[in-house]
């Protein structure tokens, strides 16, 4: 993914002894941490250069806004109003007057500087613990100017990681299905965007129905279902080159694809004669293996992050329930036993939880359970919602939600939503059109 790679040069080693600030991400957003994001300072010559190249009046402020928005949307931070800031950005970056920042109740402060160096964008930033009066982190990046949004996301990731102790999820993208048109004849296109909704791009034209795109965790490949020539098949798409190919040579519908955690296999369902079974195909040697063998519907497979297990849903008990088996198909065990129908199990990147969709008494839920089925926790209830996908750090789920139409069949919409694992911070994720079937990428950097 050369185009998206960023030259990361860390020139200042973080000085960390101990810190008073700590953000607990396990409890929800009842007390978001007050943080001041001082606009990145910029000298006049650099400012003019970037204005020419990027058509942005002040790229320093633009990057800060990205950081600020990310922090706010995470639900864990409360970025303070800039009008209240007393110190100029350039001076603050040298040495903050902590009393001033304390006065506006900031507990953490981000300062920084942008400069134009040999046609590149150089950004340095610092994270300060206001109460302790200490620098917690100082880093610098150099990259091509067009990567300026990503710099904002990477800064957020670093700050998030320093303050929560866990990797961030901001320098990531979402692939999803963009939808338009009446409910009976939806036009669907693959689309990709940054995690914050910026840089939206359509990857297909909408000539054929496309569904369920999923990222390869290790590369720029995407797998999805396309109805090209009215033959529903699993495809591979290289999002950098636009190259597409059918996966395998199956005499019937293949669907519900996902990658293995090492990115080397695709796991999917193949439907034939009214029976759907789970298969894998090795992308290097093209060897196809049949994993399940049961005259029921077996679909929505998802690997555990260590690749040793597969969760899937099956109606072998009469209704859709979630099962776990070893990756060779042995040792099949049902794990969902609550009331209702369970589908779309997706293994958390941390390995400890499985997210799912549940239908019970006419309501759809997104929930999580441990991998043995215990500890079921429902995060959100709605008329219709499904298909959760994990943020790469396993702290946030993105899914889609459809509205109930009125008595005349009007008012249909499909939107992307996200929610924290805590059940807090439910938000609509902005998309230019309607959207469904979101899949979250891995972190693009590091």
């Amino acid at each position, binding site marked *: 993914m050369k185009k998206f790679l960023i030259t990361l040069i860390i020139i200042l080693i973080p000085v960390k002894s101990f810190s008073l600030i700590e953000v607990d991400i396990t409890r929800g957003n009842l007390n978001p941490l007050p943080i001041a994001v001082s606009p990145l300072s910029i000298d006049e010559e650099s400012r003019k250069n970037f204005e020419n190249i990027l058509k942005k009046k002040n790229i320093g402020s633009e990057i800060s806004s990205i950081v600020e928005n990310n922090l706010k949307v995470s639900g864990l931070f409360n970025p303070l109003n800039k009008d209240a800031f007393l110190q100029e950005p350039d001076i603050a970056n040298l040495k903050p007057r902590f009393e001033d920042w304390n006065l506006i109740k900031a507990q953490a402060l981000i300062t920084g500087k942008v400069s134009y160096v040999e046609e590149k964008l150089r950004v340095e930033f610092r994270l300060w613990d206001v109460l302790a009066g200490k620098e917690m982190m100082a880093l610098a990046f150099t990259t091509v100017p067009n990567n300026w949004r990503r710099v904002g996301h990477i800064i957020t990731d670093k700050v998030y990681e320093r303050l929560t102790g866990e990797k961030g999820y901001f320098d990531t993208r979402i692939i999803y299905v963009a939808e338009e048109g*009446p*409910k*009976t*004849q*939806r036009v669907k296109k693959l689309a990709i965007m940054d995690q914050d909704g910026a840089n939206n791009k359509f990857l297909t034209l909408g*000539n054929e*129905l496309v*569904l*369920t795109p999923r990222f390869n965790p290790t590369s720029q490949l995407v797998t999805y*279902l396309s109805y090209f*020539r*009215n033959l*529903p098949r699993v495809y591979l798409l290289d999002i950098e080159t636009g190259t597409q190919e059918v996966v395998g040579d199956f005499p*019937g*519908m293949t*669907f*519900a694809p996902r990658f293995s955690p090492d990115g080397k296999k695709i796991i999917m*369902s193949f*439907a034939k*004669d*009214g*029976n*759907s079974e789970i298969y894998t195909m090795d992308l290097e040697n093209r060897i196809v293996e049949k994993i399940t063998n049961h005259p029921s*519907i077996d*679909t*929505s497979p998802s690997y555990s992050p260590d690749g040793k297990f597969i969760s899937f*849903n099956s*109606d072998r008990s009469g*209704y*859709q329930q979630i099962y776990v088996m070893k990756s060779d198909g042995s040792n099949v065990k049902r794990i969902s036993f609550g009331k209702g*129908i369970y*589908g*779309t199990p997706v293994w958390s990147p941390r390995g400890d939880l499985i997210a799912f*969709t549940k*239908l019970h008494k006419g309501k759809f839920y997104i929930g999580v359970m441990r991998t043995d089925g215990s500890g079921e926790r429902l995060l959100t209830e709605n*008329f*219709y919602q*499904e*298909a959760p996908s994990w943020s790469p750090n396993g702290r946030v789920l993105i899914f889609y939600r*459809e509205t*109930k*139409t009125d*008595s*005349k*069949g*009007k008012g*249909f919409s499909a939107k992307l939503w996200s929610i924290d694992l805590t059940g807090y911070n439910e938000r609509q994720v902005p998309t230019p059109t309607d959207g*469904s*079937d979101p899949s979250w990428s891995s972190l693009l950097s590091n």
Partner: protein
Amino acid sequence: MKLSKILKNGFLIVVACLALSACATSKKTTGQMQGDVYTGTDTVEYLASGVPDRVFFATNESVLTTASRETLRKQAAWLRKNSKITIVLEGHADERGTREYNLALGERRANAAKDYLMTYGISSDRISVLSYGKERPVDSGSNPLAWSKNRRSVTVKAN
């Protein structure tokens, strides 16, 4: 590619919508369903005179009802008479299920129709199966009657 087909489907849906809006006020929900299987004729097209093009299913089911078997026997008789015609069985589900499961369910429903046609002498060479899952409802309503119309297998002439 298959523009004619797409246009035709579009046309069918337009017709279906017109039919729906015309009768929406006059018919009661319960009168058009037995259990939760649709028994009305609002959305039904005809392959030939007296040969309905579709059969309906109960929620989560792919079992053919008595009425469905009767429809399929009529289709089989028509196919035997018109031995050059090939068909696509398009299987559909309602919106009250996950997308992937519904794709499998649509496939299972269309295959139930296919199996029945085969027992009445129609060669599998003449039948292909295509599942749309919940992607192509005929009724955009979010109510039990609309869902019952959408749980269907539709026999479409392929040539």
